């Protein structure tokens, strides 16, 4: 269980997160929705240690991980797929996957190529030459190579065609079912959230303004109307 309590963070004097409280249950997909500029990416960056928090606490399975360096968090079992993917474009697919092993060493687990069969054929290709969908799959596979306990995804469906978004949803459902991975999914794609998330929280002006069961959400629901203005 990941517990976030009264988390405040920002950039210089500008505060973005103003007291976030959120529980992310083990072995589930918890989604976070919110308009642009509400602090979703900032929250992801704080969770993975790339942005220092001003105050508050983060605990993972009752151990404090507040203020932990990113590489230590990765070794603690956190994995991150940032918005825009951040694959290493000049490296090969194989090298990108090998980097995913930095946190724990060893070899690439064989199930990675069962989940992402197209990557097995693309191992020698430069990652920058892949399509957007293939790059997103690579970023997801690179994160899963480390066999994390908590996977943080920041808008994985951004800019992808619907078939690729469906494939991402398939992978998320599978890693939760097969590996009991906990997933924290920041998304704008309501259909994907409804399909995979057990719980959905809404971030408004840097605080959690409400929550609902993922499957209960529809474009017409009052929560969506209020917090996303769809």
């Amino acid at each position, binding site marked *: 269980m990941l517990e976030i309590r009264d988390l405040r963070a920002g950039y210089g004097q500008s505060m973005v997160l103003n007291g976030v409280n959120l529980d992310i249950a083990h072995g589930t997909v918890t989604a976070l929705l919110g308009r642009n500029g509400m602090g979703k990416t900032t929250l992801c960056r704080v969770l*993975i*240690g*790339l942005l220092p928090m001003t105050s508050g606490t983060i605990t993972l399975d009752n151990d404090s991980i507040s203020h932990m*360096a*990113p*590489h230590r*968090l*990765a*070794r603690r079992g956190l*994995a*991150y797929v*940032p918005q825009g993917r*951040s694959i*290493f474009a*000049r*490296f090969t697919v194989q*090298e990108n996957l*090998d*980097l*995913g*092993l*930095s*946190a*724990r060493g060893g070899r690439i687990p064989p199930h990675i190529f069962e989940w992402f069969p197209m990557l097995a054929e693309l191992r020698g290709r430069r990652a920058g030459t892949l399509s957007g969908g293939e790059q997103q799959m690579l970023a997801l596979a*690179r994160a899963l190579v*480390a066999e994390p306990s908590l996977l943080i995804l920041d808008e994985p469906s951004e800019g992808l065609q619907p078939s690729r978004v469906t494939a991402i949803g398939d992978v998320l459902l599978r890693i939760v079912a097969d590996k009991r991975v906990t997933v924290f999914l920041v998304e704008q794609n309501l259909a994907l959230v409804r399909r995979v998330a057990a719980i959905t929280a809404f971030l408004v002006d840097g605080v959690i303004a409400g929550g609902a069961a993922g499957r209960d959400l529809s474009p017409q629901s009052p929560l969506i109307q209020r917090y996303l203005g769809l």
Partner: protein
Amino acid sequence: MGAFLTWAPLLLDALSFVLVLALVALGLVVIFGLMGVINLAHGELFMLGAYTVVLAVGWGVPFWLAVVLAPIAVGAVGWLVEVLLIRRLAARPLDTILATWGLAIVLQQAAVLAFGPGSRSVARPTDATVTFAGISYPAYRLELMAIAALVLVATMALFARTRVGLRARAAIADPDMAAALGVNVRRVRAQSFVLGAALAGLAGALVAPIISVDPHMGFGFLVPAFLSILAGGGVSLGGVLGGAAIIGGADSLLGHWMSPVVSQIVVFLIAIVAIRLRAARAAGS
């Protein structure tokens, strides 16, 4: 045949200078590429490598053991510099330039105080010559070239073929993402400074028997090393060799026909042309 006998030793001299220059430049590139630090004290680390050999041989240490000790000693100095100075100036590139410039002055003056302002020398491990194709050439210079070439290839292989190198390249390309994947970026940067310092120390150790060792010797290698990097296209490891070949080759060969001042002016002109051509090609692509 006469032309070959004249040219071959000159070309071999130029090649040995190019390889030593490439070692110095490679150390600079490793430090700049991974840390964004322009290390103006790099020439003094080269100088410390040379003095390490002079001192060690003076204490009775065999020459080749002294050559092994020099990069270790200078690498240790590099580690201290990284911990005490560079790490504290992270993300402040202008400050690191000033700090390493100041460090260069401190190391030079420390060498003057410790060893005097004059030059020292160390005997070559062998005075033997190797004769091939009608020319005789000092065996030590051939050994120097072989070692320098081997270390250059090994360093490039370290970055291109190993997991350590992969993590280092990732830390250069996107330090945040590398850290999020489990790479200890700060440690990688510290290791890169140690490696860069050790390469400078090794280069200084190797040339100690063939040039005079004095507190100001580093500057004579620092400037062409920077020019080699610029002419070779920035931080590419492969480009270092090309840049060193252009700058070191011209510097070494022109010195045989021109006065030192004129040859240095020509080398600068060649560097400017190479940099302009590279910039034009980059803009075109």
